[in-house]
């Protein structure tokens, strides 16, 4: 019966959940299971899904004990010290080197923020997955293209045109990723390897995945997931911030503050979730805070866009960008952009830091916070001649190009 379920095509047939508190109640409920991506268990019940070939049976698709065990193992990569190494030893030096070299080659300071950011972050993704270090731009750009191709396959259900063609190209990208990057990294990983990335962690933990295919799909998941939210949110943050600053010019002085940059990041993440929604199947009857009653076996669509703009939680100006927004206690400032409950994105603190983040630049601040702080340190401004352009043919809120200019040759002191 459920061939169409678990695909965005079927959203209109599902119960729509749009309030912040109802979405949270389902995400945090032990009586709901992942229905957007399939595990071996759910695929056998519902039939194949569009993302199976790319991330099927990866941690994002699992439920219950299998999910807990996989997630428990992999979260070891995201300790505060681990996040600090990723942000301060990988991202920041790469970003500064890339900016300096770019400004040497392009004295006008013009750059496309989409490509520029992706070239930095794809190397972070490669490190998280366990690929060999990517030293040159050509290799980074190739991996970026393949990761974007795989991501387009995973999210093909949101495409509004050419879905079959997108899937065909995505499968080509997946296979090229395997032969050009993954296979060598997998061959280098042994039981004796230091467990410092996804591949080595799973290889050195016998029984953590049931097959080499699942290991590959787990690597593919982390390739696309460990930086896609940050990549997507950065342009939104700059766009919204620049328009807000036009009415609040005094706040430009705050751009050197990590807490302010984190507020900007949180607000952009709230307004622009990476995907429009999540899907769950109820495994028991549940009554939501609004009084809506859900039955066992009911499929629900959790509307991330609308719930993040719920005026009962975020106020009457919930649609507006306001980095000084105050949210009620217990409310996530970025709403459910990272999901919630047991499936909360593992990279959330890597993206925006944690509650204990300080204003000390030597501490991990979250990669998105750090990128905003650093880019404005190099004098980022919107390009007055060229307008940013959004991605066509998708329900996702993405940018295709985002021209900017860097007005300094070095970062602020």
């Amino acid at each position, binding site marked *: 019966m459920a061939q169409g379920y678990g695909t965005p095509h079927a959203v209109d047939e599902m119960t729509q959940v749009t309030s912040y508190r109802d979405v949270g109640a389902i995400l945090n409920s032990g009586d709901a299971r992942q229905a957007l991506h399939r595990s071996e268990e759910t695929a056998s019940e519902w039939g194949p899904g569009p993302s199976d070939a790319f991330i099927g049976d990866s941690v994002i698709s699992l439920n219950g004990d299998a999910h807990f065990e996989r*997630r428990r193992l992999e979260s*070891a990569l995201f300790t*505060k010290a681990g996040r600090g190494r990723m942000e301060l030893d990988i991202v920041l030096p790469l970003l500064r080197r890339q900016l300096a070299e770019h400004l040497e080659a392009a004295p006008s300071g013009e750059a496309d923020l989409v490509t520029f950011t992706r070239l930095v972050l794809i190397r972070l993704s490669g490190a998280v997955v366990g690929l060999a270090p990517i030293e040159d731009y050509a290799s980074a750009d190739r991996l970026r293209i393949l990761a974007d191709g795989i991501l387009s396959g995973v999210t093909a259900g949101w495409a509004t045109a050419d879905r079959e063609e997108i899937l065909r190209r995505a499968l080509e990208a997946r296979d090229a990723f395997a032969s050009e990057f993954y296979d060598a990294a997998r061959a280098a990983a042994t039981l004796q390897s230091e467990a410092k990335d996804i591949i080595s962690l799973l290889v050195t933990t016998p029984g953590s995945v049931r097959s080499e295919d699942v290991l590959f799909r787990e690597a593919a998941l982390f390739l696309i997931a460990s930086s896609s939210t940050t990549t997507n949110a950065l342009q939104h943050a700059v766009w919204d911030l620049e328009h807000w600053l036009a009415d609040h010019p005094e706040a430009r002085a705050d751009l050197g503050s990590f807490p302010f940059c984190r507020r900007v990041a949180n607000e952009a993440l709230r307004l622009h979730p990476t995907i429009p929604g999540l899907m769950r199947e109820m495994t028991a009857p549940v009554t939501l805070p609004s009084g809506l009653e859900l039955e066992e076996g009911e499929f629900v669509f959790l509307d991330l866009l609308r719930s993040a703009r719920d005026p009962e939680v975020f106020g009457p100006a919930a649609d507006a960008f306001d980095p000084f927004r105050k949210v009620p206690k*217990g409310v996530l400032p970025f709403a459910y952009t990272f999901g919630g409950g047991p499936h909360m994105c593992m990279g*959330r603190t890597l993206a925006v830091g944690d509650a*204990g983040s300080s204003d000390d630049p030597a501490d991990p601040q979250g990669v998105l916070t750090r990128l905003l702080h650093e880019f404005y340190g190099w004098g980022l401004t919107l390009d007055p001649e060229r307008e940013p352009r959004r991605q066509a043919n998708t329900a996702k809120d993405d940018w295709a190009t985002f021209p900017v200019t860097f007005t300094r040759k070095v970062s602020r002191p």
Partner: protein
Amino acid sequence: MRISIDSEACMGTGFCGRIAPQLFRLDDTKLLSVVLQADVPPELEDSAREAETACPAAAITVTEE
């Protein structure tokens, strides 16, 4: 070492109680996790750190003393 849970941030996944049952427990009535002993004995320090990192809600704080 001391541990605490931000009850506003806790999402009640119960991961902490599964990783370190001597330190955390899921309060079934509130659907939130609670700390069983705030002062962590040395033999449980690794479990406390693992629970902190594995918490999907980033609601646990471990303070080294």
